[in-house]
């Protein structure tokens, strides 16, 4: 039976999940955006062409993306302890979530920036724009709708990852689902957490779409 205690547990779990996801999304964007910019601009034929750096950078990003999250989370426990002081709880979970999402963001940012019309970049060059000016005044503003959607996809992904983090003491809705829904056979609690997760993902996507639309001026 769902009682007041369980409802408040679900409420706190939701808040924990939101906290993990939003902070990890923010930090991963902060770290992943420059890496994405580096990936795009050092590519052959681009404004800061550096084929070697481009390949090394791309390799590291791919490596980061190819490690399954559940393994990554366990593997970097010493690092997590170093940063967060503990490896258990929502604050600790933010560390592996950020580490996992950063290369993901970098790749998505790279994809969004590559969509910027080469002609527009050439036009800026013809006006004497420097590479930093091209990045800040042309590429990022022109790719903004795509960048917003990239962050949205990342946040949605992190909702999933955060539930996984819950399974090894990360807190949040995933933790509830494992401890009550799975270990204590409370199918009703399991169902509630799933419904909340679905609503969360829908909400994040709708918000992202709305913000992206605001920046979209192509027609």
């Amino acid at each position, binding site marked *: 039976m769902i009682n007041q205690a369980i409802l408040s547990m679900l409420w706190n779990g939701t808040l924990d999940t939101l906290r993990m996801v939003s902070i990890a999304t923010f930090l991963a964007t902060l770290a992943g955006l420059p890496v994405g910019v580096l990936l795009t601009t050092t590519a052959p034929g681009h404004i800061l062409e550096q084929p070697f750096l481009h390949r090394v950078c791309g390799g590291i990003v791919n490596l980061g993306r190819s490690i399954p999250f559940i393994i990554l989370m366990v593997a970097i426990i010493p690092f997590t302890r170093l940063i967060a002081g503990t490896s258990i709880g929502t604050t600790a979970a933010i560390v592996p979530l950020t580490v996992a999402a950063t290369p993901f963001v970098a790749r998505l940012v790279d994809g969004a920036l590559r969509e910027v019309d080469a002609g527009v970049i*050439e*036009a800026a060059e*013809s*006006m004497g724009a*420097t590479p930093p000016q091209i990045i800040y005044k042309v590429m990022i*503003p022109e790719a903004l709708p795509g960048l917003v959607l990239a962050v949205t996809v990342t946040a949605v992904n992190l909702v999933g990852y955060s539930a996984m983090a819950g399974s090894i003491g990360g807190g949040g809705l995933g933790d509830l689902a494992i401890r009550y829904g799975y270990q204590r056979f409370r199918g009703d609690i399991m169902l509630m957490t799933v419904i909340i997760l679905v609503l969360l993902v829908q909400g994040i996507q709708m918000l992202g779409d709305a913000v992206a639309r605001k*920046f979209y001026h*192509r027609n």
Partner: protein
Amino acid sequence: MIEFKNVHKTFEGRASVHALRGVDLSIPSGEIFGIIGQSGAGKSTLVRCINMLERPDSGEVWVDGVLMNSLSPKELSKSRKRIGMVFQHFNLLNSRTVFQNIAFPLELARYPKKDIVERVTVLAELVGLTDKLQGYPGQLSGGQKQRVGIARALATQPRLLLCDEATSALDPDTTISVLRLLKDINERLKLTIIVITHEMQVIQEICDQVAVMENGTVQETGRVVDVFTRPRSRAARSMLQGFWDPKLPSALQSTGNTILRLTFANQKVHQPVIAQLVRTCGVDVNILYGRIDQLKTAPFGILLVELVGSNEQRSQSIAFLQENQVEVEVFNP
């Protein structure tokens, strides 16, 4: 004044393209200079060598006494602010309003805000877009977008404007209006305009001088009237032929009579040369085709005529026409 000295450029790739094969060309200040050629002739590469969007492999590019290949990135960035560029596909920033697009080069050059507002207002008036300043490029027609592109290119008061196929993506009416705008700008601001195009009409409407390119070399340069009336290179002749000459019905071509192609330039257009020809030489002249056009400001006419008469009368007629400074070419083989 712009000078190319033996400029070469090859694009390496799976199949290397030798885009420029030793171009020598000088472009005087203050005029509208056209560069025409088929696609792949190297004209876009050539114009991109002026502001170093493409770096020549060898040779020199001089703009107003400055050797462009030798500039440091910083100097190049500065000198690019004195060279405006207009593109075929406009290349406007979709994330910025029309106002912000025109203001963009001023922002890059760190103009004070007040000056930017003033300058953009003047430019918007010049290109006739005062009422669209708060709109986005996505809401404009092609012609309006190109007007924004032109205003943007003029923002930092360049001495030189490069137009890379600026009207090729526009419909015929819009093309005319954009060309008029360029002509007007050239007259009012006294700046040099270099126009890259594959359309003879563009050269005809606005250019003072023209260079004809083929296979990465300049085949011919000269005043437009001269190149149009007396083309010396095969490339120029073939571009002109497609532009001027009608396809004569084959019945007309096989009458056995001589068909002449007469080209009139400048004052000759106003004189009744044909009537004088008939009276003087006693031949019958059958007019098959004719047109009069305007080359920027000079009138220019073409006639295809069939001469009916004896061989002697024919050669007399040709001599008479040449004496009267009409360009004569035997049209049928």
